[in-house]
């Protein structure tokens, strides 16, 4: 937190007078890249082990963290208008809702499909 506040303080000296928006210090950019690379290594490492269903959760979880980092610093949402942040979060929420609900339903009706396939393969009954 103090780190971030410090960074914020720094840039004020960096921008040219009259600049629109916030200039991200180079140091921050490189720190972000490092974090992303480390997280990539972790993703790959974790995937070498079989945790069953947890693998998916882990992979998507880490990806979410990476996405947050990209959006907060590279896309400078941290310093941007609040509304732009809401657009991103809102879209992600909608994406989660769509995937979640459709997945929920398709899993529930899957047995119908399987039954149908079985009937099709079974030799015609007299």
């Amino acid at each position: 937190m103090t780190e971030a506040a410090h960074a914020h303080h720094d840039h004020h000296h960096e921008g040219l007078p009259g600049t629109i928006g916030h200039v991200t210090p180079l140091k921050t950019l490189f720190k972000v890249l490092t974090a992303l690379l480390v997280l990539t290594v972790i993703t790959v490492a974790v995937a070498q082990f079989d945790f069953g269903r947890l693998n998916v959760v882990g992979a998507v979880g880490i990806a979410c963290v990476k996405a947050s980092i990209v959006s907060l610093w590279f896309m400078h949402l941290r310093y941007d208008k609040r509304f732009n942040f809401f657009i991103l979060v809102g879209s992600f929420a909608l994406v989660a809702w769509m995937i979640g609900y459709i997945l929920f339903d398709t899993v529930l009706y899957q047995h119908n499909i399987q039954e149908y396939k079985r009937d099709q393969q079974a030799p015609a009954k007299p």
Partner: protein
Amino acid sequence: MSTGVADHETKHDLPARPPELAMHFDNMHQQFHSGKLGMWLFLGQELLFFCGLFTAYAVYRGNHQEMFHYVHYFLDWKLGAVNTVVLLVSSLTAAWSVRAAMLEQRKVLIFTLLATFICAGIFMVVKYFEYTHKLHIGAVWGGGFNVADADLPAELVAKYPDMTGAKLKEMGAGSFFAIYFCMTGLHGLHVLVGMGLYIWLLVRALKGDFNRRWYGAVDNVALYWHIVDIIWIFLFPMLYLIG
């Protein structure tokens, strides 16, 4: 031509209307943030555009657990990881280019724009090799999936010696590749568009088009580029890593 314009000007103590300022805006801030809000809405739209593919992925994965496990060996995670790194680096250079534009560092700007473009190019070259290999061995969509047993990935054969191409086809491997090609294909298309946009920015940067109050294009293209990166951040583990 109109008294309206003159009237609007007087209320801000900006020295004069900058040449870049469009007729219907009051000042550069308003203009900049309008463009940016538009871009963010566009990015929200992009997420929902990809959402259909992610949903299809989730649905087919949910219903074909086993098949997904076998088939993911077809994808070389090392190539995927290389591409991930390439895209992350390009995201850095994209963010850097915004910084350079704001600080009016023209050389840095040109260099970072070029670097982003080159990274995107590398990404596409790797993709090209991945695609041609899959097409070559017949690891393709739908009913077209026909892989000879000799072409099965070594890792898969080592783990499951009695696995055959016919068995995979029977399990519905075609669905996996349908989704794989759609997702990575649409993503690749976005990368190509991004490359086009970076060329456009390069030309403008060479002409000296940007300054501290007029760099919206650099900023917005970078935002677009980051979303392309974010989508890949999800695609990589989902397709290449988890089986």
